[in-house]
């Protein structure tokens, strides 16, 4: 297992290289002159030329990319924003944690509500509760988060004055953005849980467990849910990855200084160092999230764990088992 995790972490390096190169190529190819944008409208062409040389934009594209890469690898320096000359690392340190918090808490909220109601809906299939939950899920998936955000601000902040309309420092400030952004993950979790549970609770072994006299609660939670968990974990991982880079509008509405806002501004201004730094962060987090989901699979499903063993994974290797428990191979 440990070897597997280490291998996946090592694999992150070529992944990030490929992602950063592709993003750099795309932003570079997009129309717009970063030097002119950095100086602003009204700059003379002469000043733009000087700025272009200063930023190294007169060099070939490949040279620029490798110059950036060299600074990152050998000096851990992501450079400075073309526009403000503020360090990219500093800006990402300021913005990224807010996005992580927002995405993490939104997905957590979505899972916390979505999974239990999905389970209940599957147990009470075709009942009024099931229909009600699926209708709510449909609304949650259909209504864009920003629409929900604006409506919630109008009701809870402007009219009722119960909750603040912006910020992300206190619990009361977090409630509205997390709810608005978490509705879609909640809806998706509920539907996925229901569908996955319905597949499992119809299996023969579930009937057998019931026949053996186990309580319904234990049948559903301990046996059925555990077997239904894999697709739900996948959904949670995908939702988190999507929210990391995609919460720009929610961040704008609630004035949350997040990476989404920073990246949109950076792309608009063709601020290459900021775009690259942000994308590398997002790619790293998404890759690590996928890794954690894969590890979670092994924890949940013994069949997956066995695959790791058969592949010769370190902690589960025969030499270790012999040493620890005196097990001898047949």
């Amino acid at each position, binding site marked *: 297992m440990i070897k597997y995790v280490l291998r996946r972490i090592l694999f992150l390096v070529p992944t990030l290289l490929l992602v950063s190169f592709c993003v750099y190529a795309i932003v570079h190819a997009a*129309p717009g002159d970063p030097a002119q944008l950095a100086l602003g409208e*009204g*700059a003379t062409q002469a000043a733009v030329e000087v700025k272009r040389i200063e930023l190294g934009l007169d060099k070939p594209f490949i040279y620029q990319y490798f110059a950036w890469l060299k600074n990152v690898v050998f000096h851990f320096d992501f450079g400075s924003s073309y526009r403000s000359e503020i360090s990219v690392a500093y800006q990402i340190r300021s913005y990224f944690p807010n996005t*992580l918090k927002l995405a993490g808490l939104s997905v957590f909220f979505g899972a916390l509500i979505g999974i239990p109601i999905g389970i209940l809906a599957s147990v009470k299939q075709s009942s009024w509760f099931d229909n009600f939950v699926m209708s709510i899920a449909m609304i949650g998936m259909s209504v864009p988060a920003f629409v929900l955000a604006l409506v919630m601000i109008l009701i809870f902040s402007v009219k009722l004055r119960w909750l603040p309309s912006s910020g992300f*420092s206190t619990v009361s400030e977090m409630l509205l953005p997390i709810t608005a952004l978490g509705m879609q993950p909640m809806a998706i979790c509920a539907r996925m849980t229901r569908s996955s549970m319905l597949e499992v609770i119809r299996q023969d072994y579930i009937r057998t467990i019931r026949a053996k006299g186990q309580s319904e609660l234990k049948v559903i939670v301990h046996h059925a849910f555990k077997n239904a968990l894999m697709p739900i974990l996948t959904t949670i991982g995908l939702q988190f990855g999507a929210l990391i880079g995609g919460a720009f509008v929610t961040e704008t509405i609630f004035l949350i200084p997040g990476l989404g806002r920073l990246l949109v501004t950076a792309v*608009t201004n063709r601020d290459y160092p900021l775009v690259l730094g942000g994308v590398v962060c997002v790619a790293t987090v998404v890759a690590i999230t996928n890794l954690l989901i894969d590890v979670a699979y092994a924890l949940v499903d013994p069949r997956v764990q066995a695959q790791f063993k058969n592949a010769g994974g370190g902690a589960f290797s025969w030499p270790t088992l012999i040493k620890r428990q005196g097990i001898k191979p047949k």
Partner: protein
Amino acid sequence: MRRKISVLMLALTIIAGLTAGCSSQSQDHTEVSQASSESGVTVGNEVSGKELLSVALSSNIGGLDPKTTVDRYSANVYGCIYETLLVYDSAGNIIPNTIVESYEQTDDITYQFKLKQGIQFHNGEVLKAGDVKFSLERGINTSMNYLVGDIDHVVVLDDYEFNIVLKSSNGAFPAGLTTPQTGILNEKAVNEKGEAYQMHPVGTGPYKFRTWEQGVSVTLERDDNYHDTLPYFKEIVFYEIADDTTRANQLEVNKVNTAILASTDIVRFQDNDDYQVVSADTFGLIYFGMNYNSEKVADVKVRQAIAYAIDAEAITKAAYFGYADTATSILSPNLTYSDADKIPINEYNPEKAKELLTAAGYDDKKLQLTLVIDTRSDVTSVGTMIKALLNDVGIDCEVVTGDKTSMSGSYYAAGTNYDIFVGTWYCATPDVNSQIFTTFHSSNNGATGGYVWMHNDEIDALIERARKSADSAERQKLYSELQMFVFDNKWWVPISYYIDNWGVSSDIDINACLDAAGTHKWWKATVRN
């Protein structure tokens, strides 16, 4: 079982490591948190609501060093921190600012200044001529170049006297020294902080920098040792709120007490006794332009026909709900040398448009033009209406649209693949040279502002003469000639002059602050009695 637990612990450690930055970064930030109350007084700060001015700006604050950031939103903030050498008085004359004892132009290219003694920066350093030399010369060939690019060098005569020597005569130069972008920085502070200076700006202004929560707000506190009249408010917080609805919401819940409003949000506050809507003239306008490089609009009859098809008054009413003025001249009426009161509104006459098109050879075949509009909401509205109006007179428009950056890079930079466009312009200084030179001089054709791509030696010569001259009468004559040239030849059809509308708590008075350049003097804000 133990291995499962250890793997689980490993996973949790990774998650905790990723989020560890969250709590520590949050604690590192000094935030101005405000709790709303029904009375509109904000609590939970070091200062009470009556001593706090909170302003919602409509764009991001790019930086606090003018060398890198010259946009007017950032200038609103650092305009409270730095002081300029010159200012405009209420009669529109350029006079020395409070840090300057005397100023005179000794010859065509030399301006002599004497600083007041004993003026201190926020870090305790004394303002000297060396700081001025440093502040101005560092701006050459940077974002500030349009203001200081004509400086050849600054000569320090002694600790408090210096000469600014230009490369050549420039009548517009003193106006540039009134803008916050040419505010004076402390050389020692900039050199000490290096790249981190943006987070530690130091000036001689009435407010000093306190904190900057990236992406959220900048907080300034009053310098109680300020050398001139102390401002009323102890603290100013500038919020970066780009979204119009969010800004209006923040005003309504009293998170801010001053906010610039979009036309659609004004009605929320107009009849509410807790608020007032304060209108402010600007130097900005939205216009319809034609490409000098385009063969299709090379014939003046075609351009005149297009102009006759455009109903600027109706567009202004529809796009801005009455919160803008119909434009006449290419220069805002608030600018020196503008002939906005002499030049008539573009005449709307679709029948005449059709006649001229027929005379130009477009009776059987339809004129087809490529219209560039970017995705800013008012540009899109105006562009869409113009397309429809042109269609009414038999002109087909293929619309190309995208964000402004892409449009600048794809179309304006090349200058060859479009015929007509909708643009906006904010003159950066009260002197029209910064607008005219950038938008009509052939040396600036391209994405920096010369979207018309004018190649006219006579116009170039006229612009250069007006720029160099120190004689107001001569400059007025030359700029009047240019305005009439553009009006007669229809390279620009001005549509609307922008008016800024500020929603303000009813107990606050910002009338003395507002500046048509868009860089407002927030230190002049007070409360109403």
